[in-house]
């Protein structure tokens, strides 16, 4: 069964350092999403791609966060510099297309701890 891959699974860093997360969506899925999930809450969308183009990054803190999907396949989310409040689970998801009725398939996530 096809799955969304993410790495690393866990990341511990000190504040002010840079961190990067990688995601490989299900093959053929044109739409890719990055979410942040704080403990005890539901995921919140950070950025959405359609192929290599950003569709929605209105919730992405652009002073420190960046995301790219250069070839329209895998994607990288970067935080620089990391802050204590960035500690959370970062989830990547993909879907067949932009249509709202398409279910999203999630990867296992990256648990980030900022010390």
């Amino acid at each position, binding site marked *: 069964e096809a799955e969304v891959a993410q790495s690393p699974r866990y990341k511990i860093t000190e504040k002010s350092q840079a961190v990067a997360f990688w995601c490989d969506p299900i093959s053929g899925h044109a739409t890719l*999403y990055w979410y942040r999930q704080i403990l005890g809450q*539901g995921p919140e969308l950070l950025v*959405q791609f359609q192929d290599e183009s950003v569709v929605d990054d209105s919730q992405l803190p652009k002073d420190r966060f960046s995301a790219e999907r250069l070839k329209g396949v895998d994607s990288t989310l970067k935080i620089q510099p990391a802050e204590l409040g960035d500690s959370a689970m970062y989830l990547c998801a993909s879907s067949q297309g932009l249509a*709202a*009725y398409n279910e999203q398939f999630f990867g296992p*996530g990256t648990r980030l701890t900022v010390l």
Partner: protein
Amino acid sequence: AQSVAQPEDQVNVAEGNPLTVKCTYSVSGNPYLFWYVQYPNRGLQFLLKYITGDNLVKGSYGFEAEFNKSQTSFHLKKPSALVSDSALYFCAVRVSGGGGNKLTFGTGTQLKVEL
């Protein structure tokens, strides 16, 4: 703005008994509704969705959900709970088009099934 409410932080049920996890939503327009399940330190797993048509939707692992437009609800149900159903359940809503075309999650309901 669209929103999802899951009024119960935790639901406890005995194995073999029916279970219900509640969800209500608020949107402008026609909703697409989803249920996801999350096991510890894992990503979200899609269970089922409502797009249109029959108000009773059947999904994975024996789960079903009933869409009620007048009550703006989409409760998750299962006739006979299993201990292995114990997990965190998220309801989510999305509408088609416009600036609200993102998946909005509730805060989650922890389901505990006991022997």
